[in-house]
């Protein structure tokens, strides 16, 4: 069994306008040591999926059903205390915005050490701070001893994200969830942080769930890819398969929008239209309204949901033969016009 296995996860927010099912039947799995990328455009439910798994959403405003088993235990049903022991120790998280994710009134060192001591009551203060210093050094922060005494506002965004990474990895978790860890940073810093994550991947044994908009990053970093659309998984496959043999029309759209895969015109290709409202999602395939190949069945029947992730899986009504010819055609176009923009 996989280290982290999510099955038919559904998360509903109770809003003033009605119930919003932000995650609707998501399944995927993460093997130990693997890097799984979750891609999809803004609002498709990537963050909510991971927050649901860690039970970090307010129970008063949302409800999650389904299964999320981690190391044989269902995260959605274990008691709070047990969940707290897993958070930060077995499963850690790096958030999107390092500017707001650290508490402004505590020193960096205190915040890192907190992560350590919450799970290791026996460790002495001195040892904990030494460990924090090592971690800061490991994530490439110069003069780590002094930095322990800094406050978050004294560090740049990139440095703060390094601190967040140090904090997330200090307990050597089995799973690290990185929710768009570079989106809020400038381009140079993004590259540095990605480089750091790549390097740490080799030093730490953690599996990584990497949430991103950027398929370029996926290609470099991930083993498996899960493509989400409007609260559902539309395609999931090993990374090479996604790039060599993409099967879902939405994935084609995403790949088309990759810089360097510019399809001939000057403008970046992007999927036309916008995702459906989750307050009142369409009955059939959710991508239909934007799909160039939609058929009548797409309007009435939702495609079969992906449950088995052992191989390349896709949720689409299109004929597999047709999809494969499309994929081949797509790849040949994409490869032909791979000029730098």
């Amino acid at each position: 069994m996989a280290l982290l296995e999510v099955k038919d996860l559904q998360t509903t927010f109770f809003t003033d306008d009605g119930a919003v099912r932000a995650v609707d039947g998501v399944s995927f799995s993460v093997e130990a040591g693997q890097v799984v990328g979750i891609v999809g455009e803004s609002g498709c439910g990537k963050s909510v999926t991971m927050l649901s798994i860690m039970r970090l959403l307010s129970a008063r405003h949302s409800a999650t059903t389904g299964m999320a088993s981690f190391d044989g235990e269902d995260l959605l049903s274990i008691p709070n205390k047990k969940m707290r022991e897993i958070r930060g120790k077995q499963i850690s998280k790096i958030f999107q915005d390092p500017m707001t994710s650290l508490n402004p009134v505590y020193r960096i060192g205190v915040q890192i050490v907190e992560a350590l001591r919450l799970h290791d009551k026996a460790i002495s203060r001195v040892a904990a701070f030494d460990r924090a210093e090592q971690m800061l050094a490991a994530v490439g922060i110069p003069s780590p001893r002094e930095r322990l005494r800094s406050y978050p506002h004294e560090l740049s965004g990139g440095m703060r994200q390094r601190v967040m990474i140090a904090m997330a990895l200090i307990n050597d978790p089995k799973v690290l969830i990185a929710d768009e860890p570079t989106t809020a940073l400038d381009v140079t810093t993004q590259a540095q942080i990605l480089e750091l994550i790549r390097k740490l991947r080799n030093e730490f044994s953690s599996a990584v769930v990497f949430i991103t908009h950027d398929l370029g990053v996926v290609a470099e970093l991930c083993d498996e890819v899960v493509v989400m659309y409007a609260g559902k998984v539309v395609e999931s496959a090993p990374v090479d398969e996604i790039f060599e043999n993409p099967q879902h029309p939405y994935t084609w759209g995403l790949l088309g929008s990759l810089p360097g895969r510019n399809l001939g015109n000057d403008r970046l290709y992007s999927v036309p239209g916008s995702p459906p409202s989750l307050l009142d999602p369409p009955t059939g395939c959710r991508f239909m309204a934007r799909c160039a190949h939609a058929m009548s069945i797409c309007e009435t029947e939702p495609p079969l949901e992906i449950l088995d992730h052992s191989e390349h899986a896709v949720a689409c009504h299109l004929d597999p033969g047709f999809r494969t010819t499309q994929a081949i055609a797509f790849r040949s176009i994409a490869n032909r016009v791979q000029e730098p923009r």
Partner: protein
Amino acid sequence: MIRYTIRRLLWGASVILAVTLAVFVLFGPVLQWKSNVEPARIYAGKNAQPEQIERVSKILGLDKPFYEQYGIMIRRLVLGPNQADKERMCPNSTEAECDELIGHLGQSFEKRRSVDKLIFSRLGVTFSLALVGAFIWISISIPVGVLSALRPRSIFDRITVVFILIGQSLPVYYFGLVALYFLAYTNKIFPPGGYMAFQWSEPWPWLSHLLLPGFTLALQFTALYARLVRGGMLDALGEDYVRTARAKGAGETRTVFKHAFRNALLPIVTLFGLDIGLLFGGAILTEATFGLQGIGSLSVDAAYRFDVPTTSGVVLFSAICIVVANIVVDLLLAVVDPRIRLD
């Protein structure tokens, strides 16, 4: 931190200087020009002869040009009355007697006493009232605000919101009088007014005289602070760093108090400093309702009787209280909130 402290102190000094100028202009030139009030005439009494008024005018230094009067006022405020002042104001008295008659803030027309001493004699009442009130409103509003933020839209929260509205709209004198009627007259639980000085051996008389006024004074503050704490906590609980704390495995208590509360408290501390500073300058309505002889009632009496030095003295004193409270709070905040020290 040292530079920050110095900057705050300089800022405070310049604010106080500005206030002295405003006070001088308002109680000197403006008063005489707009309403034909001559301080010398008031000082000299109703049926004074013109010569008497002129003599009084000399004694008070009112015959001098305004800029010189202002200079004298500032010098006296900082250094205390000098020999010339003393010779004018208390010619035939000993040093000790003279100290009773004139101080840094001058001499009261009405009471022929040093304004410093007048204010000083009222400090105990006013400070006690402010402190008891503050203790009450802080110890009610913070738990209430935090609890209702933890369970927004719960029954507790809704009841709190209603009480906040009531508390904020009830006038002090109304609540005070009702409280007096039920708790001091019909049921003689509390004394019906007045003040007893604090004594270590027996603090109860002091406290019993201050509980009703303290609650009355605290009512609106409790409502306001509960609302602010609730809002601040709701905001803080929605912050990313709170989610980070939870993601680290922190328990609910730790998350709420160590991470959210400390941040939510920062704006409250600022406001608290200002309010306490303001109250040290006298709580006029509460003092009047409960017959407390504090700085608030001193200023009202003085204003009624055109006692210019006392009125302006109280105004200056209040301003100084507010400025000092402000500086104390700023320095305190700089200790609690590391972001402030830089700018």
